[in-house]
């Protein structure tokens, strides 16, 4: 296998070649940033849920998931990503089956009649979070093993991306479907798809988006949510209310915020879905520009470190893996914070590592474990 990460550093590498101890090469900055964001998230979940009757239980569960996530992150990072990639077909296949399964009677009905969950007693599992990872892994493994991305390989990669996207559209979970587009785009760009092909893809994508919005494939509420940010008067009272309340909460926080537990919108429950999709409003209201800005900086550091890991990766598979994870995180962060700030449409996209929800936290941690793995095993 000819590496693409190649590079000066590896050739002129002066670091030790002691591969037996991967910990030496762990990205401490990324690790610390991840830990801080997780901690920040727990505080936010605490603030957003403490007014609920079962608030303490929600926080405890979230804490448990964080612990599980951190364990998974360390576990995954210890394994050479190439060993994991060897299994990509199986992992991808199982993930798709599980994702398809939620559409069956096994899946649980969620809000607006969408199906995106499995419920095992008290534990709720959202397979799309795992499917995103599996897809990143599959595309990275498939494209990372070749020099050139010809049309046939491009087509296969598009199929790998298209299957989970179609399945999430059927739920329907528009936000997650968009994740596959963005992740795919990022990986195809870096993966060496020709500019010509890429341009055609982008044009097709744009046409498709407009087509979807014009067609009857989306329910009115979905269109409303998507277009609310551009057309504030044309949306339903509920969507408008959600957007208004989120911006009101964030803005009233000002420079330093009301302080933990003191934000009126948070305290009195004015922002719907505040512990999940609108958790950024807690940071905005209670910690102000300083606190929510700090959260964004931590995220920015994480993105930077993942991007750096992509650059330093030993091979193109590692690079693509990191880019996939980076695209996923970047889209999640931008879309989620953007909708909280009123500059992006409202879709059900959680804020990575912060929003309450076990599947998302664990999946995000595993994704970061993969990045760490790429970073730690770059000399192997």
């Amino acid at each position, binding site marked *: 296998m000819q590496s693409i990460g190649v590079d000066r550093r590896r050739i002129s590498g002066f670091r030790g070649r002691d591969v037996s101890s991967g910990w030496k090469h762990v990205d401490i900055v990324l690790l610390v940033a991840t830990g801080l964001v997780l901690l920040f998230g727990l505080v936010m979940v605490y603030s957003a849920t403490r007014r609920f009757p079962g608030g303490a239980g929600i926080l405890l569960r979230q804490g448990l998931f964080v612990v599980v996530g951190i364990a998974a992150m360390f576990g995954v990072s210890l394994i050479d990503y190439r060993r994991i990639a060897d299994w990509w077909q199986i992992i991808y296949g199982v993930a798709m089956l599980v994702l398809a399964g939620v559409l069956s009677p096994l899946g649980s009905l969620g809000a607006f009649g969408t199906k995106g969950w499995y419920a095992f007693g008290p534990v709720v599992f959202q397979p799309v979070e795992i499917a995103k990872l599996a897809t990143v892994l599959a595309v990275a493994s498939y494209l990372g093993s070749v020099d050139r991305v010809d049309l046939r390989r491009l087509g296969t990669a598009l199929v790998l991306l298209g299957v989970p996207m179609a399945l999430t559209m059927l739920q329907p979970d528009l936000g997650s479907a968009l994740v596959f587009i963005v992740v795919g785009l990022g990986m195809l760009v*870096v993966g060496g798809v020709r500019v010509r092909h890429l341009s055609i893809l982008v044009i097709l994508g744009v046409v498709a988006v407009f087509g979807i919005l014009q067609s009857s494939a989306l329910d009115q509420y979905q269109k409303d949510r998507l277009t609310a940010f551009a057309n504030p008067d044309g949306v339903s009272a509920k969507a408008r209310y959600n957007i208004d309340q989120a911006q009101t909460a*964030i803005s009233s926080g*000002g*420079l330093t915020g009301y302080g933990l537990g003191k934000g009126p919108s948070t305290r009195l429950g004015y922002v719907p879905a505040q512990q999940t999709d609108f958790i950024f409003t807690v940071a905005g209201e209670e910690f102000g520009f300083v606190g929510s800005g700090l959260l964004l900086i931590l995220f920015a550091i994480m993105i*930077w470190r993942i991007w750096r890991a992509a650059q330093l990766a030993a091979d193109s598979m590692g690079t693509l893996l990191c880019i996939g994870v980076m695209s996923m995180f970047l889209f999640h962060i931008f879309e989620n914070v953007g909708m909280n700030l009123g500059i992006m449409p409202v879709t059900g996209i959680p804020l990575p590592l912060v929003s309450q929800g076990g599947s998302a936290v664990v999946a995000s941690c595993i994704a970061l474990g993969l990045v760490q793995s790429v970073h730690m095993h770059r000399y192997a």
Partner: protein
Amino acid sequence: MDTDSTHVRLSAIGIVAVSLFLALFMRLWFLQGIDRQAFEAASVSNRVRVIHEEGPRGRILDRNGKILVDSETSIVVSLDREPLRKMEQPERNAVFVSLADTLQQLGVPTKLSLIEKRYADLRYAPQEYVPIADDVDPSVEIYLMERADRYPGIIVERKAIRSYPYGNLAAHLLGYVGEINEKELVERGGQLPGSGSASTTSTTTTRPATTQPTSPADSSSGATTTTLANGAGGASGGRLTDYRLGDSIGKGGVERSYEADLRAVPGERTIEVNAKGDLVDVLSLESPVVGDDIWLTIDIDLQAHAERLLAAKIQDLRGRRDKENNRLNAPQGSVVIEDPQNGQILAMASYPDYDPSVTVNGISQEQWEAFNDPNSGLPLVNWALQGTYAPGSTFKLYTALAGYKSGYLRNGTEVINDPGVYTIENCQGEKCEVRNAGSTPHGTVNMATALTVSSDVYFYKLADKFWNLTDQYGETPIQDAAAQFGLGAKTGVPLSGENPGRLPTPANRKAAFEARPDLFMTGDWRSGDNINTSIGQGDVLATPLQLVNSYATFANGGTRYQPQIVTKVTRPSDLTLPANDPANYTLIRQVEPVVQGTIQIQPDQYAKIYDGLLGVTQSAFGTASASWQASKTAWPMAGKTGTAQVSKKADTSLFAAWGPAGTGEPARYAISVVIPESGFGGEVAAPLAFRIMAPLSFGTLLPACPSADQSECAAAAEAASAASGNDVTSGSAD
């Protein structure tokens, strides 16, 4: 794969990432750094409700401190529209449908359409609670409170409403309370939030905490403008003009003219609510201050007595016919009793009456139409001051005064022969003969006997002379004398809707004709007009209140007081303690009598008129002597009957009198009784007056019964009804 290309592409992705983060930071800074204040206001309006609380109005007491109008607590179901606005249309409709169903099952007749209308009513400020059902049972409150989660945005509040312990008694005088309308609100400088936006983010809730002192009260009610010293006024100070839509305001009677005293200083409660609209915290609390108590000049026992006898009399009259076979419809009637020494109104009865308790939660459309249906007799009208009638022979008092004041009569001993017919001097045409009632000849009469027997001819001649000698006596000696008694102008009683009546003069007839030549046959004034005016016919109109006030003026020797309704305003210390104990209140202000004018007349001339009027009841020839004999008062009374002709209808029966008379003691009571379409003054109005006055004069008046205990009153009413039938055949011609 090309390394350089990968590098370039990675860099491109990095640039995209940096730009996206920059975008987020810029937006975050815009919201939190630049645009913060706008959103902060929205945050406050989200969660803070300023609730305007009216508080209980002051009570209305009679002159002895008996409570005529009280305040009690009512439970009101209202909408808090903030949480409802957040719902989708179907969800909200479901809440409304469920609420309407529930209320109806609980016996509250609230229609879905009303709830929807109130929800969309832009006249209420967005943050204000909008009432949808008043005065519900406590069980409704409990039911709704227990299921608060099923009825988001539904608030149950308590508010003070009016109660009327004496039922219909004095209903016209007391007036009623209703929701302020837009006109009244604007007049008081209130806030009309009609243009308010319904958006959740653009509304403001906080209002200045400062309160404005009141301006002098209700100047719109006409009568009160000149009576600030006596009537409603700003003397109490510190009252708020802070009215809101949905507030209560006095709509008539004392409730309206003493609004500034009765109204509680509104309170304000600032509360914090959560997203569901549930109360979380009270941020500030300013309790309303109970309104002041108003003490009326009315004696409720006398009022009850007068109303009962008036009603019995009218009910008895109806359906009978007079000697010309005109139906006695007696559509209405009024009795007013005044203290001649200070102008205080002791009783003011108007028939038909109404039950003021139907107004407590707002008058329904059906009820309002019924009240204003002419067939109902217009029960809301206070005929005592809104009804105008030709005063008939009661007017002769003024003509008599004119005779002396003009100098035409020297001492009243001048006699004329009254053959029952008078031929107008220098008359050309057909109607040159005018007659006494029934053409009865009275023989030789002077001023006193002319009044006693009600000789029209005596006054015809006087009026004819006046008109023939206008260069000597002016055009309007009769009208001038009547005006001195207060005719043709509002008395200034502090009650709304008072009618000034009408005092025709050559000048105002001419003006009226020139303004609308199509409406009048002529603009000229002739001898016949003077003659008609002299006996209270023609175009003369007076209210029963003007009538009693003019006789009270004569009775006290010529001092004309403004009729007084309120004696004092007090501030109670504890509403649960007896209202009439001076230990339980502090005096805010005492209302002093207001003298509006005095009539100068020589004592011997005064005595002539006095004797004539005393003779009406005491002389065997007096027009009211038989009826006085039938129900004697403790002391003699003096007065004048009136039988006014109204075309195509039965006569209006009038009587105005005072007592004690002729005993040397000061007059204590003046009374006027007016019943249209009922017959002779001496046969209907006078007997009724004496029967009302008799127990008063003997001090045997029965106490009025509160509605809660009607048994005694029912028995008394029955007795009154039985006695009323005897009058119609008694008495002599007028």
